[in-house]
């Protein structure tokens, strides 16, 4: 029932696009496998249960990782020095060890012989306990889904962003009651540039709410309540992006978040985070997401907010193919690849809607089993809320006609303020009307063979292949440095967070990576069974 094969794409061309993406991704994957970062190491500590912060809010995970790094370096991984100190020292727990390390009272070393074997064994046990906790949360999601029911796609995706988790909770519950299938808690501005994860329940933020483990827990619990009330599982989304991507992914797995924003290049392009740091962090975060059964959402929609949505349509496809390749390599199943794209063509362009349909249908057919996330117009929302409401309706129509899986709800007040209660209500009325009025219209939408839509789709695919060939010749890092995506130039030796990157030494040891590299992330629970929509 999924609308496939409507564009008569040449399978050989599609296959070629995927092979090129794999070739372009390969050196990056190799780099990620041979390097580590401060955040990857801290993620291990968090997985092993290290939580909390000092009185200034600096997390114990940062204290401990920094102390090890200062004394023995990052290149061996923090696991051996940390568990060596724990096994042989007077400290009863990781927190006590971190507190002592913060006061400069622990001396770390790289253990050898029996000490090394003991440290390795203890670290493995700790990492295994964390992975098992994530496995349990995934099984719990499966149980709750079976108990309360999984809503039909397209899922309606709404955001809340008050800055105060205790204000977000009633708003999120209200949104769920009004029809939201997915609630995303927008993060505080600039959190992506913090090299630590804030701690505890937070009540102040700039245009969003901090992502913290406690905020995750509070919101997931509130959505569980409302899911049972409504008889429909309401998913929770946050952001595994920025400098703490691996740690936030880990916390999301531990607190049973359901979807995470996790793009391969967003932080590089839009936040000026160092490209190497991003790709290394990302592989670990995606391995965790794969294991946790979390659906990632990628950020290709953002390219269209900077570049022209017609001229740059092929950069979206290229990025999706790269995200798919990086995702598969990290263990994500197709059903976990929430590839993003957007309705951002200037409405003043003739046949803009026809072009949107071509782009949306192309993405649908290239990734038939991916829960595609379709983003509403933002760039051409002018403050004329009435015209904006109309544009959002056309966006909803394109989404229904081309079988998109996750539809972010457009707000007519986009760019004016964070959505009011009434903005959300009107937006949901809009999408409900279009969805109900169209019903199974996707079944009837079959573009004329060789017509405008089919030709445009083929043209975008062909431009994607040209760009992928350039990237393969040039190298992905160079392409990013040259401003291929989102116009911005991002050299590999610049940007935030590069000083937190280290090449792994011989004998590098990280028991979490050991498990994630060796085991099939879906073996214990089976691949998630979400149906890809009609």
């Amino acid at each position: 029932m999924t609308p496939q094969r409507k564009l008569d794409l040449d399978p050989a061309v599609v296959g070629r696009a995927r092979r090129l993406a794999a070739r372009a991704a390969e050196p990056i994957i190799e780099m990620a496998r041979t390097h580590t970062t401060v955040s990857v190491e801290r993620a291990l500590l968090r997985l092993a249960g290290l939580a909390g912060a000092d009185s200034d809010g600096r997390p114990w995970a940062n204290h401990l990782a920094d102390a090890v790094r200062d004394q023995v370096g990052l290149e061996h991984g923090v696991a051996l020095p940390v568990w060596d100190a724990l096994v042989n020292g007077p400290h009863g727990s990781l927190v006590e060890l971190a507190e002592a390390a913060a006061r400069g009272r622990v001396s770390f070393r790289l253990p050898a012989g029996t000490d090394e074997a003991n440290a390795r064994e203890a670290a493995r046990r700790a990492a295994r306990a964390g992975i098992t906790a994530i496995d349990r949360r995934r099984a719990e999601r499966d149980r709750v889904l079976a108990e309360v029911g999984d809503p039909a796609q397209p899922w309606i995706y709404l955001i809340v962003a008050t800055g105060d988790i205790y204000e977000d909770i009633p708003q999120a519950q209200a949104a769920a009651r009004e029809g939201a299938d997915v609630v995303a808690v927008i993060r505080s501005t600039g959190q992506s540039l913090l090299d630590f994860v804030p701690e505890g329940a937070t009540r102040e933020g700039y245009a969003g709410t901090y992502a913290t483990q406690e905020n995750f827990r509070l919101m997931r619990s509130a959505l569980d309540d409302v899911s049972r009330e409504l008889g429909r599982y309401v998913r929770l989304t946050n952001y595994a992006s920025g400098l703490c991507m691996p740690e936030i992914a880990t916390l999301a797995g531990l607190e049973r978040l359901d979807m995470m924003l996790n793009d391969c290049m967003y932080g590089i392009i839009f936040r000026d985070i160092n490209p190497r740091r991003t790709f290394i962090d990302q592989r670990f975060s995606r391995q965790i997401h794969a294991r946790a059964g979390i659906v990632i959402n990628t950020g290709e929609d953002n390219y269209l907010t900077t570049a022209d949505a017609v001229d740059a349509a092929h950069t979206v496809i290229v990025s999706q193919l790269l995200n798919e390749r990086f995702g598969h390599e990290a263990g994500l199943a197709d059903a976990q690849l929430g590839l993003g794209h957007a309705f951002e063509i200037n409405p003043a362009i003739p046949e803009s809607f026809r072009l949107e349909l071509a782009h949306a249908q192309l993405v649908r057919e290239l990734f038939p089993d991916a829960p595609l996330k379709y983003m509403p117009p933002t760039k051409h929302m002018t403050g004329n809320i009435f015209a904006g409401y109309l544009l959002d309706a056309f966006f909803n129509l394109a989404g229904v006609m081309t079988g998109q899986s996750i539809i972010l709800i457009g707000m007519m007040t986009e760019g004016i303020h964070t959505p009011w209660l009434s903005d959300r209500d009107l937006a949901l009325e809009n999408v409900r009307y279009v969805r109900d009025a169209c019903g199974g219209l996707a079944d009837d939408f079959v573009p004329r063979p060789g017509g405008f839509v089919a030709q445009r789709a083929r043209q975008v695919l062909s431009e994607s292949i040209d760009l992928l060939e350039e990237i393969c010749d040039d190298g992905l890092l160079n392409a990013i440095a040259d401003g291929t995506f989102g116009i911005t130039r991002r050299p590999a030796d610049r940007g935030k967070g590069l000083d937190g990157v280290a090449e792994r030494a011989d004998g590098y040891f990280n028991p979490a990576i050991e498990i994630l590299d060796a085991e099939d992330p879906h073996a214990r629970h089976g691949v998630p069974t979400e149906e890809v929509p009609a």
Partner: protein
Amino acid sequence: MTPPPGSTHSAGSTDTQAPAEPADTRQVIRPYGDTTGDGMVQVSFTLPVPAGKRADAAALQLAGKMGLDPASVVHAKPMGPDFTFFIVYGRVNHLIDYASIPVPEGREYPLLSAGEVNLAIRATLGRRLVIVGACIGTDAHTVGIDAILNVKGFAGEKGLEYYREIQVVNMGAQVTVEELVERAKAENVDAVLVSQVVTQRNAHLHNTKQMAGAFHAEYPTAVAAGMGRPLLVVGGPRFDTVTPEDLGVDRIFGKGTTPAEVASYLVHALLPGEATQ
């Protein structure tokens, strides 16, 4: 189109209703629905009460207090058990003395699009405009500088990195004045952008003066911004009590400043030959 019933635009009325005076000399104005002077406006709002007749009465009372008389609730919709959304039409009884409203002093420079900024730089400078940005002192809040510089931008506008003809060096937070001066010299920058969010003990004012002093000392023979020294620009939410002269900078930007305003100012201040649209 057929005029709706009750419309005053009925046939034959035109010759008996000549305008009293041309519109541009009218002193006192009211909102215009479909007839001069009808005072009609539409508003929408939410009240935190369950929908029903009592909620409608509350909406009408609010409309009355807003100066709408008569008012009618044309739409009331429950949003969950605790909220109601209203659309209300009504006649406002307020009059506006238009003649007493001064013509606002515009920005002394035109607001340019990214394309116009790029074109101006290309045409006038023949190279990319180079800027360095930083949060100086102990201020770790890069929200402001990132909103102006990062591609992500602010208020739906892309940051200065998005401008092809502007080369941005973003030094981030907790940059010392010495580091900033050194980098500005090394990159031979056209402008220095400093963001100051933290205001405890007037740190933002002290830091800015110190920064300006250092640049003036470093370029003793400078004639003006762009003539022997870089343009000095500071931004932050708490500069409303001081003038640029007080601080020794060329321009202060306040809360809510967008990247396009900054880019347009750079063109205005550094490319004086550039025709204003």
